[in-house]
């Protein structure tokens, strides 16, 4: 089994301009991953699958991760002019002051692909792709044409995270119902007050009944006219 660096070199030799970066994993499992750019991701995937040495023919796991915007506060040393009185004379002196600055690292949505080889019996090789942001640019190329096992799993990521996979043959919601609006696995998802609530034809009647109850006018409560 090749190391991540060797796989990266192999990809870059086979697919020029693939734009692969290594994302190290500090945990004891040591499953470092490869961050792939969108443009040539399908080409990279096809290379990984068809290369005789790697032969990653089995895509085991596809999943999404939501990284929120992160606010980082860091201490920076800044030179700042300070007015001081030295020996009775007012002077402006440069002094280094520590200042806390806040900086926002923009969040993104990420998909993670765990690849194994059934022919060579090795793995895992971890691929990642990231969207530009979490709001409007949430598109990503689909790897379903390369590995069929991504079909339902990418649908699930689309359903629960809202990542739109370009080139997926059948991108629909899979676990939530079609009319559902939000993406529940996102970190900032707000749960509804009433899970069972659905707008029904009865809502109008309830609203009317409530209005009548408030006014005390019960004669028109039936709503039957003519």
């Amino acid at each position, binding site marked *: 089994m090749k190391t991540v660096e060797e796989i990266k070199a192999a990809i870059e030799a086979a697919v020029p301009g693939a734009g692969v970066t290594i994302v190290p*994993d*500090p*945990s*004891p*499992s040591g*499953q470092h991953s490869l961050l792939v750019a969108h443009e040539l991701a399908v080409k990279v995937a096809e290379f990984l*699958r*068809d*290369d*005789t040495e790697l*032969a990653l*023919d*089995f*895509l*085991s*796991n596809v*999943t999404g*991760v939501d990284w929120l915007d992160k606010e980082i506060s860091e201490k920076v040393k800044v030179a700042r002019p300070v007015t001081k009185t030295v020996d009775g004379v007012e002077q402006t002196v440069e002094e280094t002051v520590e200042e806390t600055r806040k900086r926002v690292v923009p969040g993104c949505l990420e998909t*993670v692909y*765990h690849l194994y080889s*059934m*022919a060579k*019996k090795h793995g*895992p090789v*971890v691929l990642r792709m990231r969207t530009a942001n979490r709001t409007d640019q949430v598109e990503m190329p689909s790897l379903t*044409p390369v*590995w*069929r*096992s*991504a*079909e*339902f*799993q990418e649908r699930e990521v689309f359903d*629960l995270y809202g990542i739109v996979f370009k080139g997926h*043959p059948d991108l629909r*919601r*899979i*676990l*939530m*119902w079609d009319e559902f609006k939000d993406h*529940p*696995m996102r970190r900032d998802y707000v749960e509804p007050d009433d899970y069972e609530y659905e707008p029904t034809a009865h809502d109008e009647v309830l609203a009317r009944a409530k209005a009548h109850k408030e006014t005390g006018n019960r004669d028109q409560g039936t709503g039957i006219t003519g």
Partner: protein
Amino acid sequence: MGFADTKTARVDGWNRPPVIEADGEGELLEVAMGPHHPSTHGVFRMDVVLDGERVIKLKPVFGYLHRNHEKIAEKASYLASMPYTDRLDYFCSLSNNWAYALSVEKLVGQGVPERAEYLRVILAELTRVQNHASTIGFLLQEMGASGTPLMYAFREREKILDLFEGLTGSRMMCNYMRFGGCRVDPSAAWLDQTRKVVAGLPGFADEFERFLTENEILMARTQGIGVLRPDLAVNAGVTGPMLRGSGVNYDIRKVDHYGIYDRFKFRVPLGDHGDIFDRYMVRVLEIRESIGILEQALKEIPGGPVMDPKAKIRNFRPKAGEAYGRIEAPKGELGFYLISDGGPNPYRYRVRPPSLINLTVLEDMCLGSNVADVVLIFGSVDIVLGEVDR
């Protein structure tokens, strides 16, 4: 083996289900099979388009049992998700426990004592035996053998569930494994009882096979039906007995060498044709191999602690990082993917459900066959909806 030959030119869309044309005689009928259909093993729906008796389109519909297990686990501590994993595939709670414990142990670099490793193997293999036996029972039930084969399987399953109850306190929701070992040490009496049950299992397998394997109805209904090509099986991520029924030699117990499976002698049964009969046969043979593993493990099990005394239990906060761990569960590759940000809860907790992913090829296997065969093909996939919908 053909599937490994990557040089063969692939036609575009080779891994998509074929398009079946209607013969033009009569109208097409759209039927929603499920979610409340006796053959769907729970709440699962297949939207089927029928041309007469022939299936020309099939779309599986999921989500009736969806409870967002992953979201709940991200809001709970690592240990608090352990009992919840029992509810994924409620036939094999101990395998689920093991897969989750294995992933967390990978994430924190935790070892497991010898005795606990043996216990894990014993419990996982007992789980496999009862799962395969019940699967075959259900399959026969769907074939029209109403009840009887299932009761034979359940009689044996009952003995195994009694063992689980004796050890863990619960028949199905065992919640037994911990990060770094197991929860309670079994008594000598429990091990003796297990040896007794295991000694009775080969007789059960023989009896099961005597009635079923050469049964003419079973052969007629299953041979050549629901064929799955090995190259498609690999590409679609099919795992477990379904994959091996198609003749692909891939058993995670042999590939990943997790636990202590390297110490036991067992073979990986493979099918030739990839039809329902091969999947049935692979399961029967896996029962026999599991019995072999059980006999070896029960003979060799050492004394000692069942829990690593250095394992951290309270204030369990793994360092930032990620890990994907997987085991060969009775239904296929069960994996857990965890990302830690250093907090007490996992930042990301993902279950790789074998049941859901094995259903990817359901349409491919069913197209062109009769409705009655769809029920059998679906039964031979072996799913549990608790795991499909999560």
